[in-house]
């Protein structure tokens, strides 16, 4: 059957009359709340509340509940068993055998963090502190993603990120990086241009502490974590302004389709959390153990002491921290969480602790993140990131020293 132009339109009208029902669109309450969530006047207060809930869950469920359940396992079972079983224990660390020093560490340590052995502090940090923090973080992330809140947060933060040449999408890698920098770097694929991806990768690697690191920071400097985090986020945006100016490329506007709010399914949340935690453990645990092993060997053969003495004028004069900070800084290249844990073993004032924790935070991202940056952005971008990192380390590390001195902490 062949139809002429008019007949074709008549047929379309006929089908439309029979199949399409037109009625006035009435917004449901979820639509209204969804709209209010992306408006700054109501959306920003809600975002502050959601992030409070996020942090509260991270701290209460991850670091208080799960950690307190795992803590006795190390304190009462694993560490005493290792102290008895590994041969070569002496009254002090200097009198212990090489194997004992590397695997168990200081036999007189009072806290699981302070042993600094591969199987003691290493396993304790990875399983006892980092695992609970990571489980809590990814559970909350899955809830935010599945409920439909994440895209709204991206829209809400678009104006802020626009000021530094990024888009609201940058909120996703930024939040993910608070869990682990590796998926954070991977998530920068969401960003549209090469300039935005490079900027985000560099800023994430330098300024955003991962969940593992946050967990340990909460144990080491709980009272000052808010101040340090605020400093890092402000530094993120200050450095972003400069990077945006000096990085060539485009910064286009964001166009985003926002899904409706939905009730998250517990099954999906558990599956997502499980996959993320397994992936994280696969990279983190071996890296923690290898990291501590390398640092311990370097320490025992005197390399760390040598680096400390060479860099001592810089540490003492410029940053105002003891030269022993060299040890956590070497460790930070492999695992930043363990590096922060090592700070507890150094005698420092509160101000020095704050500066040292900040230095470790803005120091080189861990090896796994480096590998991911290389994979995603290539060697040239990685070298540029390292150059930016070195500048930021001195600028923002020195600035923190000045702020702490002015505040008289």
């Amino acid at each position, binding site marked *: 059957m062949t139809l002429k132009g008019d007949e074709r339109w008549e047929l379309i009208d006929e089908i439309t009359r029979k199949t399409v029902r037109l*009625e*006035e669109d*009435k*917004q*449901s*309450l979820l639509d*209204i*709340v969804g*709209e*209010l*969530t992306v408006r700054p006047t*109501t959306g920003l*207060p*809600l975002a*502050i*509340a*959601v992030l*409070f*809930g996020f*942090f*509260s*869950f991270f*701290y*209460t*469920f991850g670091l*208080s*509940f799960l950690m*307190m*359940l795992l*803590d*006795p396992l190390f*304190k009462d079972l694993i560490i005493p068993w290792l102290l008895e079983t590994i041969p070569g224990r002496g009254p002090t660390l200097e009198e212990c055998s090489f194997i004992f020093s590397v695997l168990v560490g200081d036999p007189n340590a009072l806290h699981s963090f302070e042993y600094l052995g591969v199987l003691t502090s290493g396993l304790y940090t990875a399983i006892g502190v980092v695992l609970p923090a990571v489980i809590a973080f990814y559970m909350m992330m899955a809830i935010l993603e599945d409920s439909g809140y994440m895209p709204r947060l991206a829209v809400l933060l678009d104006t802020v990120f626009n000021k530094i040449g990024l888009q609201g999408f940058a909120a996703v890698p930024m939040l993910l990086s608070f869990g682990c920098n590796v998926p954070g770097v991977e998530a920068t694929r969401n960003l549209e241009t090469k300039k935005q991806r490079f900027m985000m990768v560099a800023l994430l690697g330098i300024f955003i502490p991962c969940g593992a690191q946050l967990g340990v920071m909460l144990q080491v400097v*709980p*009272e000052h*974590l*808010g*101040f340090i985090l605020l400093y890092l986020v402000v530094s993120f945006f200050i450095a972003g302004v400069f990077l945006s100016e000096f990085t060539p490329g485009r910064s286009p506007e964001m166009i985003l389709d926002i899904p409706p709010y939905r009730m998250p399914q517990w099954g999906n949340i558990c599956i997502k959390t499980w996959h993320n935690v397994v992936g994280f453990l696969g990279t983190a645990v071996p890296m923690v153990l290898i990291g501590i092993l390398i640092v311990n060997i370097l320490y025992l053969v005197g390399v760390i002491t040598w680096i400390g003495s060479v860099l001592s004028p810089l540490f003492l004069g410029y940053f105002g921290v003891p030269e022993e900070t060299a040890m956590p800084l070497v460790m930070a290249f492999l695992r930043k969480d363990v590096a922060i844990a090592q700070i507890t073993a150094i005698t420092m004032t509160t101000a020095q602790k704050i500066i040292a924790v900040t230095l470790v935070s803005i120091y080189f991202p861990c090896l796994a993140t480096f590998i991911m940056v290389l994979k995603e952005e290539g060697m040239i971008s990685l070298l540029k990131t390292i150059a930016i990192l070195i500048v930021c380390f001195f600028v923002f590390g020195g600035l923190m020293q000045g702020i702490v001195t002015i505040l008289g902490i």
Partner: protein
Amino acid sequence: MDKWKIGSVYFVLLGAVVLWFGCWELITSCGITDEWATDWLKLSAEAMGWISIWRGLVTSLAGLLIMLGAFRFSDDEGFGTSVVGSIMLWIVAGSDILKMLCTSIPGTGSWLNTFHRFLETYAPPYPAAIWLLPFSLVILHFIVLKGQKINKESQ
């Protein structure tokens, strides 16, 4: 007086009370006034000062949104604003309840708490958000009413 007018008055008052407690929490956590607690109610529930400030800010903003929305309660946007404010208050109260649950189970240096300590965790004083939670749940009744109204209008 119709239900929406009663709701409006109720949520303006509730918003004002939430805002007042939020501001009090905020100034207490900033160290402007001393910490305050009775046998039933305590103000600063956080171990770390900076989280208390954050919490006080959320509670104050929740009160402000509940109150501002309640002035236009029968209007979709005003009602939605009060709902957003209530959700914020539920987040703070939920965090407090979760904290009670999580601290009641593990013991200090042992896997499980003693039964006495377990029960003790749930004893008062409670933070302001927990006391205000049941009063804010009234909004659920209005959410149901709103749903019925929307359904009726669309029919």
